[in-house]
């Protein structure tokens, strides 16, 4: 799909990253359309950071290809300008002041938006003469976010940016993040193990577990084709064609199944309840962890 490739936000084909003998990412196939805020969820060690580091060009794949906005990540200065990245621990130079960080951004990025940066710094209450080393975690995250956003990238990537923040700082940070993405008209990719964060700001979900994609798709589509069914005993093995069982739960003596249904499959026979994004992600993660030993291939990528 060479022509389609150019317009995709992210396109991975056979993407594998190995650290020694450990496969952090194992044969990933993924195609995400542009204009999305992508939530990348999965347990610790699932390969989220690995995928994001590959996406911003901090590391290179062991095999397979990855295209971000149609090009190899960090291929050249032009491509570096198109992607903003906020690393997990939001690193800044401890001895440089807030103002000097903005100057750094202005000097190193031709597309730097001085007014945007100044306005944001004022809004979040960062004092220009304060040394970055003396900022709180939340303030430092805001500074790192401002530097990444003020170069006006087409894509902003966040690696667990809110993980280390207290609830209030996290709330403020996520609000800033959403505001930035809206103001820039940019796409975003955000990794998190907090499903509530993802539910709040993302419109596209990727579930990663044990180095494989378990599920990927637009949130509204995922919610409309996943359902919770209350099944009478014995019906589990006789689900109609077009309905795939994702996870089965027994609550108060009755079985509820989280299923994925094709658009034309008939669910009329059973009582149907809607699912939340959190339940959905957890079901796929649960399935991945229980079936890992059986070597089940996570083919959720087909859902695109």
């Amino acid at each position: 799909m060479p022509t389609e490739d150019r317009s995709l936000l992210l396109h991975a084909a056979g993407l594998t990253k190995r650290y020694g003998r450990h496969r952090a990412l194992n044969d990933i196939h993924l195609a995400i359309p542009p204009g999305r805020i992508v939530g990348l969820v999965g347990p610790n060690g699932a390969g989220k950071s690995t995928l994001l580091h590959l996406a911003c060009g901090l590391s290179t794949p062991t095999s397979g290809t990855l295209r971000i906005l149609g090009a190899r990540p960090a291929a050249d200065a032009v491509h570096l300008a198109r992607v903003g990245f906020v690393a997990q621990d939001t690193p800044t130079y401890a001895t440089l002041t807030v103002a000097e960080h903005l100057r750094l951004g202005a000097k190193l990025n031709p597309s730097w938006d001085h007014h945007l940066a100044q306005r944001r710094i004022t809004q979040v209450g960062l004092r220009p003469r304060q040394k970055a080393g003396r900022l709180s975690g939340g303030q430092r995250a805001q500074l790192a976010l401002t530097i990444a956003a003020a170069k006006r990238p087409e894509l902003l990537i966040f690696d667990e940016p809110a993980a280390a923040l207290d609830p209030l700082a996290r709330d403020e940070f996520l609000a800033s993040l959403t505001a930035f993405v809206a103001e820039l008209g940019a796409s975003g990719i955000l990794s998190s193990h907090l499903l509530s964060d993802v539910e709040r700001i993302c419109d596209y979900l990727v579930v990663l577990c044990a180095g494989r994609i378990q599920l990927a798709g637009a949130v509204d589509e995922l919610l409309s084709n996943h359902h919770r069914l209350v099944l009478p005993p014995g019906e589990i093995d006789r689900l109609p064609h077009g309905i795939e069982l994702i996870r089965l739960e027994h609550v108060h003596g009755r079985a509820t199944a989280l299923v994925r249904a094709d658009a034309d499959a008939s669910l009329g026979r059973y009582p149907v309840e809607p699912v939340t994004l959190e339940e959905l992600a957890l079901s796929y993660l649960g399935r991945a962890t229980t079936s890992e030993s059986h070597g089940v291939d996570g083919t959720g990528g087909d859902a695109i």
Partner: protein
Amino acid sequence: MRWLTWRQFRIPALAAAVLLILAGGYLLSLGSDIREAYDTYQSHCDDPGDCARAENEFRESYKNTLLFLAAGLNLIPVAIGTFWGAPLIARELETGTHRLVWNQTVTRRRWLLTKLAIIAVACVLVAGLTSAMLTWAAAPYDEVAQDRFSTLVFGARHIAPIGYAVLAFTLGAIIGLLIRRTLPAMAVTSVVVIAIQFAAPNFVRPELLSPEAAAVPMTAETINQATNLGNITGGASIGGVQVPGAPDAWVSSTSPLRTADGQPLDKATFNDCLDTPPDTGAGGRFGDAAVCLGDLDLHVAIEYQPGERYWPLQGLETGLFLALSALLASFGVWYIRRVS
């Protein structure tokens, strides 16, 4: 990128500038002292006996100071490699700031090359200025002492310190890139730089230009011009032999004493001459021993660099070190793309 490099480097640069000014003040006053003492020694030179004594006095009064200063100047590359080179990349990798700066609109290659280039210029300035000041201050002494090829002095005069400083800096930076930890990188760098400073004069410098060979007859006179006889194993060796008629040549290797047929002089004969030479009442540094050995028709085979090769050797050594630095920088550019 230039702004960021300068911003991160300005405190080390300021420290270097202050030290440079202090060193400059001291060397200026030392230089005028030496010139005054030189004039005093020259004023005694109407009478040859007086002149030799005055020359000796002049040399002795500045020998140790200048040797100490040459050693001090040799510490500059060690300091530069350790404090400017090693932390340059290692600290970024250690604190994670590379993940901030490598995602700005600057490729890693440009980031690295700008940093290396700007600080290499600072190395050239620091080493070059210090060396120029010391070379100026020591000029009258060097003219009298004729030891500009000696290990410490050669590396602490004219342009040679520049090569050492730039190489030490680049080496430190690349070691930091490979080790990724500041303190270990600093430790390794200091050891490697000192090893280079030891190896270069002893193994590299003599080979930069293929040396001339000569057999020097060991008369009582030539033996008395040498600096030492024998060694701790009791071998028939001689050190500090001068090339006849060319006292400014650099003798880089000297064979043991040989007899007329080319065989090494046996230890017993050598030690007899040293311990119980026939009493002739001869003067000179080695007195009767020199006469005793001189009568044996001995010679040594030497390899040497004629004095006029001083500048070619300075240029070659500096050029070699700058080329090595460029090679290291290219390796860094290649390697940094693989860092994650």
